[in-house]
Structure formats: structure tokens, C-alpha cells
């Protein structure tokens, strides 16, 4: 049996506003360690909602969620914050770097919060990640001085700082042009193959999805297909 990093059991999620509406309908699936998974679907299919439930930020669902062998359903906000800090790396469509801190400090922040490593170790780790992402020379700049592609790569470095069991992406290339988009995808691919990093990315970019290990397609809050690749 393969090592399950993430397992969703019968996840159902309602939106109450404006009327009670089932966004996720009995979604069950699991992701194994080292897999590079993409979730695709039309807008309104519930893929982003699923991601936020899986990310533990949204707790208002029915069903069970297991992360790295640990049941996260029913845990308190503080416990979930700790779990996110330690086990999940996020890359969003928007970079969400803090303008008040320089690039290096931005990358280090979740690490300092976790408090597992000393500041020197974190700095070293952060620089290593920035180097792999080819933005090491920007380390001491303010995020405002960087291009969109650079910012997104720094956001990836930040996601990696605590060696998470899974990286979750929400349209990570959505705001980027073709060239930067390719760079970001290559980095994801590299991470997935080399470091055995588990990854789950929500995207509506079919080309992006096609190059991942596995595609989960969603429609009307249900998973259509969880294993095969589709060609669009």
C-alpha cells in the first residue's frame, strides 16, 4: 500500500449564501507521497473550494480529512494553524509577500514561526531555495522591486522553507505570462521529481495539468476522474 499524504473522505461542503447550495458533493480521494497532482474543472465546479477545505483553512465541511496520517477534522484553529505552518506550503495566484519585509525575511517568516531551526539555519535554507529558484540575487530587495515571475518564485521558496509534506497551489501561474509560467511549472516539476515533494495544484490551464502525474477533474462538486490523464 502506498503512503497516503492526504486523504479526503466523503467531503461535503455547502454554501449558505444566497441559498443553500452544495458546492462539494461527497468528495473522496487520496494523494500519495511524491505525486504531482492537478485539480482541474470549469469555474464553479468546486475545485478552489475543495482546495481550501484540503488546506485546513476552511473548516465548515462535512466528512473527514487526513493529513500525513493525522486526522485534521475537528481540530481547533490554533492546532490547524500549527499544522499548516509545519506540513503545508502554499502558493497562491497572487504572491502575498509582505511589503514590510525583504525577500529573504519573507521566505524565512513561516520558519521563524515554526521555531524548529535557528535563524542562521533558516537563512541558509532560505538562500538555498532562492538559489534553486534562480532569485538568490534578489534576497535583500523589497518584494515591490521584483517582477511578477520573481515574486511567484519567492512565494514558492516561502512554501518550501519548513519542508512541508505537501505544497498546495491555487492557480500559481494564473497571473503570469507564458515564459514565467513555464519557469514556475518547471520548478514545480523539478521539485516533484527530485525531492519527492508531494504537490497539488488547482488550475484551469489544461496544458499545465497535462504535464502533471495525475489529474483530478471536477464538475458540479463531484470528482469525475481521479487517475487518468486527459488530453484537451
Amino acid at each position: 500500500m502506498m503512503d497516503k499524504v492526504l486523504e479526503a473522505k466523503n467531503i461535503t461542503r455547502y454554501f449558505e449564501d444566497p441559498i443553500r447550495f452544495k458546492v462539494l458533493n461527497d468528495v473522496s480521494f487520496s494523494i500519495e507521497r511524491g505525486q504531482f497532482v492537478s485539480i482541474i474543472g470549469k469555474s464553479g465546479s468546486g475545485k478552489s473550494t475543495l482546495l481550501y477545505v484540503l488546506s485546513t483553512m476552511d473548516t465548515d465541511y462535512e466528512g473527514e480529512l487526513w493529513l500525513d496520517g493525522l486526522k485534521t477534522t475537528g481540530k481547533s484553529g490554533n492546532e490547524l494553524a500549527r499544522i499548516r505552518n509545519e506540513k503545508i506550503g502554499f502558493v497562491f495566484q497572487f504572491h502575498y509577500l509582505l511589503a514590510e519585509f525583504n525577500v529573504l525575511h519573507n521566505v524565512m517568516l513561516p520558519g521563524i514561526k515554526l521555531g524548529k531551526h535557528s535563524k542562521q539555519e533558516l537563512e541558509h535554507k532560505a538562500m538555498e531555495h532562492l538559489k534553486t529558484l534562480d532569485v538568490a540575487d534578489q534576497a535583500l530587495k523589497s518584494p515591490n522591486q521584483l517582477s511578477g515571475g520573481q515574486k511567484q518564485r519567492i512565494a514558492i521558496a516561502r512554501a518550501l522553507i519548513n519542508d512541508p509534506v505537501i505544497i498546495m497551489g491555487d492557480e500559481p501561474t494564473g497571473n503570469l505570462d507564458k515564459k514565467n509560467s513555464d519557469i514556475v511549472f518547471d520548478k514545480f516539476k523539478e521539485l516533484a521529481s527530485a525531492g519527492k515533494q508531494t504537490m497539488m495544484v488547482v488550475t484551469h490551464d489544461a496544458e499545465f495539468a497535462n504535464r502533471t502525474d495525475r489529474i483530478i477533474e471536477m464538475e458540479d462538486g463531484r470528482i469525475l476522474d481521479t487517475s487518468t490523464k486527459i488530453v484537451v
Partner: protein
Amino acid sequence: MNFRLILDISIKLLFARFKQTIVAGVGVTFGIAMFIALISFMTGLNDLLDGLILNRTPHVRLYNEIQASEIQPIEGSDDYYNAQNFVHSIKPKNSKKELRNVSAIIEALRADARVIDVAPKVSAPVFYNTGNIEIAGIVNGIEIASEEKLFHFSNYVIKGQISDLTNVSNSIFLGKGVAQKMMVDIGDVVQITGAKGQTSLLKVVGIVQLGLADLDNTISYADIRTTQTILGEGPSYITDLQVKLYDIESAPMVAKEFKYKFELDAIDIQTANAQFETGSSVRTIISYSVGVTLLIVAGFGIYNILNMLIYEKMDSIAILKATGFSGLDVKSIFILLSMIIGVAGGILGLLFGYVLSEVINHLPFETEALPTIKTFPVQFNPVYYIIGITFALITTFIAGWFPAKKAASIDPVIIIRGK
């Protein structure tokens, strides 16, 4: 919780809106400074005004009241034993104002542990003679050492040395108004007629100003012996015993006790001056309410700035929460931010408050009532500074609490999805 990290983020956010932060801090500074200056000045003024009465008034005064005898002769008669009597048109008995056995009473009072000291006094109604005119007045015969000890007599002396009252025989300190009317000054000799018609020549060695025109126009001070001579009485003639106690609050009880013990009339300071405490407490209430109002206004300033900051930094808060900062962490960040403004503004406020108090303390303030006071009275009391900084911390904590609570409850999903 990683305090260093939280503090670091707070400071970074604070510098992100530096101008507004300064404005909020200045609000606190202003509030505290005004509070300190106001309360120090008001208390200084209170002490001064209370002192006007407290310093001059004995805590307990022992004297003989002119009154009718409580026991009329008929009540002593065996013929009318157990009968009702009605006596009309009773006149006061012909008792002297003199206190009997006064040296023994003074000795007993000085031995009493509750008593600071006793100042004996002879009050003599007199006429000041100048040319053909006679001015009615009162000469107070005092024992200068105890009078100075208990009532700070020298505070009211505008000319002359108090020691001259005992060193120069037949000397007198005239009230300012009396001296003006008689057109005399130090070194001149005035003629005074006592109630029984005997005349004395006294040398003016000083001028006093009590600050109340009525008193300054009538009252003079002389040594107790000199006054006894004016009245033609012996050295045991004392009309008042002025007692000061260590505990002013016990005055009413002590007065009652002395009244029975020494068989004299006794009046305590609270009964004699019931109104003065009211003024003091009203002034204190006003100072505190103005100070607290200023601080609350400053608190609203901080509240506004933080609310703005939170709206502006929604994204940052969302990503902090997404990457593992708990609601408590976020709350701490904003409360800390508010407290930094409060502490910095508060400490500056204490400094400015002190400076402002010093300035007030040096402003000229001349009053007829207090010839020795030249500047506005200010009380420097560390307690006000402690109260001030405590208020500042409490206000900024509360002002920070509500926005911080809001920040803590921000749902990162809504922010991130909304982009």
C-alpha cells in the same frame, strides 16, 4: 508563541504607517501631558487653598463660650426639689473669658500623644488710636514659637522679623490695613487702648497680611505678655488654647473628649470649616475627568489608525494566517502595536507633563492672600505619573483590543479567494 517574531512584525507594520502612528502617539502624549500638568496644578492649588484654612485653623480650639449658666440657682434649692421651674430673661453669667487652671491644662495637652503642640492665645478687643480717631480692632497675644510651629506665622509676615516680637519689649505686628490707616511703619510707636480704658504704647516691629481685608484691617499680633498687660490682666490670663493633632480626622472626637475633660468649650476644625473639603474634591474630580476624557479621545485615535491599518493589511494578515500564524498571534501583533504607541506616547507624555508642570511652577502668581507665594503652586507627586502611564496603557490596550480581535477573526479563505 514567538514573542520576538510577533514584536518584529508589529514594528514593521508600525513603520508601514509611520505618519499615522506618530499622530496616534501624539494623541496619547498630549492626553498624558495635559493630565499630568492639570492634576499637578490642581492639587497644588488645592493644597494652597486648603492650607489657607488648615494652616491657620487649630484642629481643636478650647475656649469659654459666653453663655447662660446651665444650672440656675433655683434648681439647687431644696424647697423646690423635684418641681418644674420657668425662668424668664436669663442673662449670661458673669464668667470670665479666662480659662481656669490653664498651665495645668497646657501641660496635660502637651503630654497627650495625639497632640502635636498647643498654642495659647489671648484675644484682646482694643482701639488703635491715631490722632483723634479710634479704630476698633483685636490684638492677638501669641506665643511666637508655638504659633510659628503650628500655623507658619512667618508665611504671613510681609515686613519685619518674627523674633522681634519677643526680643523687643512692648512690640506689635500690625495688620497691613491697620498700618495703612494709621500711616505707620516699622520703628513707629502706636497707642492702643484696651477694653477697660488702659492705654499702652507699642513699637511696630512688623506688618502681617492674612489676605482677608476684614482681618487685615482689624487684627494685630503681640506677645502674650504684652497683650496681658494691655488688658491689665495677670500672666495666667489665656482665652484660647489652639491644639493641633497628628490625625486631623480624629479632631471631632478629641474635641468632645477635651470638652468634658477640661470643662471648657471645644470646637473642631471640621465643624468650624465644613465647606472647604467640598471645593477640594470638586476640583480633583474635574481634573481627573478632563484627563480621562483626553485619554479616551487619544484611545479613539489609536482605534482608528489600527482599523485603517488592518483594512490595508488584510492580505498580509491572510497570508500570515495561511502560513501558520494563529488568530492569537495576529491578535497579539495588533495589541502589541497599540501598546507600543501607548508606551512611547505615554512616556513622552510623562516627560512633557513634567516640563509643563515646571513651566506652570515658574509662572508668576501674586496673590494678596499669600504674600510669600510668588509663582503658581504645583504639586510634583510621582503617584500622578504612575496613574497617568497606567491610564495610557489601559486605554491603548482597549483601543488595540477591538481592532486586534477583528484582525484575528479575518478568514484567509475569503481574502485569498477574492483576489
